[in-house]
């Protein structure tokens, strides 16, 4: 059910939240998406103090486990935070609860958000409802499958490279990463601060627009959060796209299978029929190829510093006892997986005095060039679109050729919108080899209204609204 349709009595509301919690528990053996199930009694009690017209009144939701919840275990799916109970709520948790949302649980993710498969979670892989032998995608995998399997209509994630938009594509749902600064990051355990965004999943464009009305807004505790007023995105997402200019990235379409090309072309024809102007645009291929490398350097450098607070001294799991060096060394050795430690080494290497100029600083320069290239296109078009991936979710044990053009460009270009901070979302539209694939839409900064409007037009023609893949 669409969440905007959920206005109901208190009793029905209560039942709804409890049912969602029961369903979350029921699908857990199949999907392994949850880290923690929350108590809902007190939250339902608190609903008495909330206007029944509140935007998310009584809505059951789940939060990615890197979003701090006061008094509730928050692990970021890392062993080092295996016992971490935050002393404060993330800004968005307060906002969601004030809007009437009921948090039924915390969801699995790639350890500290550093991954795209959800295979690195401390609690193990999250399985894809469309094929339990396949990955959910990551890093917000748990949240994605809770929405696609119909447990909740809305779930919070975070997106540093494509960690909301990629799993949305793999799960046939909507994944939104608004403009950098549109949603406060205060209380969200970081990965790479200059790239991190709060994002979320829904099953309809209207819900996506409604969710942003709740989540967006200035927070004085996040200096990067914007003062721009929050718009009425729901009212503006009409699907009226006459004259809207859409650029399809040709470089990516050239690599797509005929099956995906056909469906993409059909969708574009349907948009043209609605009056949109759709053109294929070739972007600078060298810059597209550089995206992953730039992302890798910047994100690991920032992550290394960001996670230096995880030392076992003041909170988290503590090993060692002889000295602070002993505690820090042992806690960080035992607390992080090998993969994460490898990334820290790489980040440290990139930050080192003798390397920083040719690694981090260079990556930042190329980042700016990539953003300029995006803005060249967005100067002429209202939106840049391309398939979020050329394929459905990979098998759990799949490997990919990480040096192929397809991998470098088609599977990793979405981090461009993290470089620029522009709003970007993925919406269901195609099926490749029987698996869902989403279309990525990126617009200019703070033009979420335009982005939702185009998404609404797409939803109207695909009819892929509120699609649920039951696993029970």
């Amino acid at each position, binding site marked *: 059910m669409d969440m905007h349709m959920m206005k109901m009595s208190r009793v029905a509301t209560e039942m709804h939240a409890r049912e969602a919690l029961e369903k979350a528990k029921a699908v857990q053996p199949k999907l392994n998406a949850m880290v923690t199930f929350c108590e809902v009694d007190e939250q339902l009690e608190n609903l008495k103090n909330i206007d029944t017209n509140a935007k998310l009144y009584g809505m059951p939701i789940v939060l990615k486990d890197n979003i*701090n919840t006061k008094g509730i275990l928050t692990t970021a799916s890392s062993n080092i935070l295996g016992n971490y109970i935050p002393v404060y709520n993330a800004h968005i948790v307060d906002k969601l609860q004030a809007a009437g949302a009921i948090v039924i649980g915390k969801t699995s993710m790639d350890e500290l958000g550093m991954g795209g498969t959800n295979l690195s979670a401390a609690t193990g892989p999250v399985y894809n409802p469309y094929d339990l032998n396949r990955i959910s995608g990551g890093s917000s995998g748990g949240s994605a499958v809770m929405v696609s399997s119909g447990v909740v209509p809305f779930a919070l994630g975070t997106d540093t490279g494509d960690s909301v938009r990629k799993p949305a594509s793999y799960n046939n749902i909507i994944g939104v990463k608004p403009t950098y600064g549109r949603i406060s990051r205060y209380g969200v355990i970081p990965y790479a601060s200059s790239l991190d965004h709060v994002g979320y999943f829904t099953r309809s464009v209207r819900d996506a627009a409604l969710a942003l009305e709740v989540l967006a807004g200035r927070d004085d505790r996040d200096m990067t959060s914007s003062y721009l007023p929050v718009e009425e995105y729901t009212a503006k997402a009409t699907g009226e796209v006459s004259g809207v200019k859409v650029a399809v990235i040709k470089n990516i379409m050239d690599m797509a299978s005929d099956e995906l090309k056909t469906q993409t072309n059909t969708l574009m024809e349907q948009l043209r029929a609605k009056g949109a102007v759709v053109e294929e645009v070739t972007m600078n291929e060298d810059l597209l190829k550089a995206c992953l490398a730039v992302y890798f350097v910047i994100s690991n450098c920032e992550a290394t*510093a960001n996670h230096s607070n995880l030392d076992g001294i003041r909170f988290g799991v503590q090993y060692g006892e002889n000295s602070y060096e002993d505690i820090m060394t042992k806690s960080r050795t035992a607390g992080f997986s090998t993969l994460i430690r490898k990334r820290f080494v790489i980040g440290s290497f990139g930050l080192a005095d003798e390397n*920083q100029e040719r690694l981090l600083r260079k990556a930042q320069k190329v980042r700016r060039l990539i953003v300029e290239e995006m803005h060249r296109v967005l100067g002429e078009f209202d939106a840049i679109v391309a398939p979020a991936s050329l394929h459905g979710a990979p098998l759990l044990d799949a490997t990919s050729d990480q040096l192929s053009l397809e991998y470098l460009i088609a599977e990793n270009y979405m981090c461009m919108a993290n470089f620029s901070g522009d709003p970007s979302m993925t919406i269901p539209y195609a099926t490749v080899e029987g698996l869902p694939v989403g279309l990525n839409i990126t617009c200019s900064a703070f033009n979420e209204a335009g982005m939702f409007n185009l998404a609404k037009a797409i939803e109207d023609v695909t009819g892929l609204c509120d699609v649920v893949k039951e696993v029970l």
Partner: protein
Amino acid sequence: MNFETVIGIELHCELKTKTKMFSSAPVSFGARSNSCVNEIDLGHPGTLPCLNKKAVELAIRACTATNCTIDSLVKFDRKNYYYTDLPKGFQITQQFHPIGSNGYVIIDVEGEQKKVRLNRIHMEEDTAKQFHYSDGTYVDYNRSGIPLIEIVTEADMRSGKEAAAYVEKMRNILYYLGVSDGKMEEGSMRCDVNVSIRPVGSEKFGTKTEIKNLNSISNVQKAIEVEVERQKEEIEAGREIIQATYRFDEATRKTVMMRKKEGAVDYKYFPEPNIFPIQLDLNWIKKIQEEMPEVPEQRKARYEKEYGLSEYDISVLIANKDVSDFYDAVMKHTTNAKLAANWVITELLSILNKNNVDITNAKIQPVHLASMVDMIAKDEISGKQAKEVFVDVVEGKDPKAVIEAKGMKQVSDSSALLAIINSVLDEQPQSIQDYKNGKDRAIGFLVGQVMKKSKGQANPKMTNQLLLQEIAKR
């Protein structure tokens, strides 16, 4: 061989803000350990820094008073290292773009003026404070995140005396500006000194050592002097100076090596991603500069111009801002500038010193001292009486009430005085005769008799005049 000493100084000054550099937790000296902290100061996951505007304002004051060029585009960087006193694993500082650069201050050393150039002033956050005990290390996070400015000089000082004069000068300026308490013993101002020596005439700097955590201005001078001696002995014995960090041991009056500096530590500085560069409003900077409190030089000029005080009086008053502030408060209620200055400098300070009371905690009211000074000037009480009254004024009492209660008021009423004088003259015809025969001392005797009869309350000046007048009549 003759050596020249070369000294550069880094001062870390805690800014006098109500809250921390990047968090809303309160700043409070002497509060119970770990009571002034929030999740940000403890480096909890998900926290973000929020810059304290007041800290920027105070940094701008410091830059202005030290002639620094102010960078109106404020940027911060991360300095990365692991240590128990650093909860986030990095310190937010201004490595690449300090708010102030290329400044200078003029110091006075034994009558000579000397320019000390400042390389930079930058803002940063303090670390937590550690206490090492036999059963382990304790950490107080109250200090974690307190706003600091670090002031770095060029290697311009050439003696321990100059270094001490520089530190004193900076402490005074920062205190006058309300930027910092500058209390070295409480750690609100911390001083690290870099010292090297080189043969006189040599251009090349010698290998320097760093002396950390000097807790008083006199120790700055002492530590440098003993370190210079140590370095001379090393060189004269044919040994090399090892680059290292030292501390000054007060008891043995020696510098003690803490650790060698083996290659520079790589702090992996990079721009802080959670604070975008902030373009300060130039009008805001101008307003801060216009509304800045007086620095000592300005106050000195004002005292000369408005009060006409002597150089000595001025130097004693402004050496301590609190004393000078008290004097200013007194001067709001009186025009007798010189007399008021005398009373503050001699009587007040000596009583406070004797009782070991700080002027900021003293009970004395400026308005009371002003009214006492006025009464002295108007001859309503004698200087001798004033000293007696002052004992109570220091305790916070109104001099008028004290005089009233003690029945001390001078007899300045001429008819009352005349009555006493004439009765004295009637009793002392010999003295009148003596005076008329040219013995001026006789007047002194007669004044004494009047004083005796009036129980010391006769106004001496009036007594003198009236005596002469009455003798002339006889």
